[in-house]
């Protein structure tokens, strides 16, 4: 047996002819923050549901905490905290009641849960809302409550499916801060996201998925190193002129990508490249030098951008 908390080999899930997860391999170690990055429909959520022992795999091997989810579903779920893509709180009940009843589903005693509630409310910054019906909460608050609720059983693995989708920037940052604290406490995190900044912020290691397959696997920094240059120069010439400029620019950059509205030029030194272009008498309408991100990795691997 391996020492990993989650061990998958050839994990596959099909729905009729459609292959949602196509024979993927990965291992997640204790205390690691592991991410699945990919566009909508890449198979991330399906993979999460299989790991969460709520969806049965079609083939392949999978052990979670040393157990097979097909055989030991409830035993595995007892040690997972699950934050689904869509909140599924009981909106008629109060914030505290939601945590309470959820704790009961794990067979926890009322005295244990009642001791735990103030601590979780503090973590989720919802102390003042403890007796408020969930109906009245904002999207960000609901999200934080869903996370707090999932922690009531002190899970070994916390699974977050698109944790910040649909939240405003401020709410996202609050949530990231909370998740970062959990990571510091040594909780094993499993995160799916289609936001590269989220993956960069939270994940020690991630797999890039597309169409049910793993395209690459590594730490965010290493992925960028392996699949992109240090910097990117973004230039715009206006949508009709972008295409004719590509051939002129191609010899100057290490790699070039044409997006509908702009051209991406990959180079170790973006400013230097911009100077070279200017020296040739080419003046783009706008230009921007930035560091490479996971978005560039994804573009390189799939030829498509993450958020389409």
């Amino acid at each position, binding site marked *: 047996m391996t020492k990993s908390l989650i061990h998958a080999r050839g994990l596959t899930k099909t729905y009729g002819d459609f292959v949602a997860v196509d024979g993927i391999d990965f291992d997640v170690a204790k205390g690691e923050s592991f991410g699945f990055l990919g566009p909508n429909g890449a198979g991330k959520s399906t993979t999460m549901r299989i790991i969460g022992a*709520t969806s049965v795999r079609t083939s392949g091997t999978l052990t979670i905490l040393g157990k097979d989810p097909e055989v030991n579903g409830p*035993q595995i779920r*007892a040690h997972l905290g699950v934050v*689904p893509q869509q909140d*599924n709180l009981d909106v*008629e009940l109060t914030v505290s009641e939601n945590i309470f*009843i959820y704790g009961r*589903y*794990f067979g926890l005693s009322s005295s244990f849960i009642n001791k735990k509630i103030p601590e979780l409310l503090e973590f989720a910054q919802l102390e003042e809302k403890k007796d408020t019906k969930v109906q009245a909460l904002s999207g960000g608050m609901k999200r934080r409550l869903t996370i707090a609720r999932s922690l009531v*059983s002190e899970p070994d693995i916390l699974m977050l499916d698109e944790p910040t989708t649909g939240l405003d920037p401020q709410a996202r940052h609050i949530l990231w801060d909370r998740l970062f604290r959990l990571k510091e406490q040594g909780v094993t995190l499993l995160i799916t996201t289609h936001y590269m900044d989220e993956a960069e912020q939270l994940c020690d290691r991630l797999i890039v998925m597309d169409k049910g397959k793993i395209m690459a696997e590594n730490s965010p920094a290493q992925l960028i190193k392996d699949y992109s240059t240090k910097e990117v120069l973004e230039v715009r010439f206006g949508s009709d002129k972008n295409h004719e400029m590509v051939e002129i620019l191609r010899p100057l950059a290490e790699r070039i990508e044409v997006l509908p509205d702009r051209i991406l030029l990959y180079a170790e030194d973006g400013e230097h490249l911009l100077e070279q272009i200017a020296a040739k008498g080419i003046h783009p309408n706008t230009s921007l030098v930035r560091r490479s991100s996971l978005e560039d990795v994804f573009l390189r691997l799939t030829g498509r951008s993450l958020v389409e």
Partner: protein
Amino acid sequence: MSTINIRKVSRFGTLHVAEARIRNMAKWAGIIFFAAVINPTLYLVSIGIGVGSLIDANKGVDGVSYLTFLAPALLASAAIQGSSDEVIFPTMAGFKWERTFFGMRSTPITARQISLGLFIAAMVRTSVSVVIYWIALYYFGALESSTAWLAMPAALFAGAAMAAVMLALAGKIEKEDFFFTIVGRFIMIPMFLFSGTFYPLSQMPIFLQFFGWLSPLWHATEIGRYLTYDYPVSGPALFMHFFVLSAMIFIGLTASFRIFAARLEK
């Protein structure tokens, strides 16, 4: 360390699901209580006393007052209505509107426990409604015999049969567009009208009696009348009533276990 207890969950998980439902209902306690009182009052005043005085002037039905005849049917009908509502709406909410079942399903709780917990909670609420209804009947003088209280278990039997079937049916519904209209207009109202509620089913031509045979309301009403006054029911008929209602409970629950599991394990 948390004290997760899997064995406790497998034993009591159903009750925890029911507890969550009952906490939900408690938020609506006022409305539930009000409906439980106002509903029988309206029926008993209009039909019981209004129609009743007319019929009682004609020597009643089966040798008892019209209210006595009507009581077991009204009680069973209230049980059916209450228990159906209490499984249909939470099932729709659990799978679709709020997706709470998917939250439960991420814990050690199983699909079977979710469905059974819902059923139990519905029966708790139905029991409360039935007791209140029975008290109203009592004050209207509809309960003359010493065995009148037996109308309550008979009504709950009908409520359980209907709830089990509705649980499976609601679990199947992914688009609710016409579901509520169909249940309300083409199941509930015809059942109320064609189950020997207001007159003995034998008054109907035989091809219309057929609807009664399918109806849990009719079976429970027959049992209720048998238990509460000298209403003649043969042994085999009584067995059939028990059998049909029991079969509905068994088939409904078994089907709901499968339907819930299939929908929660996609």
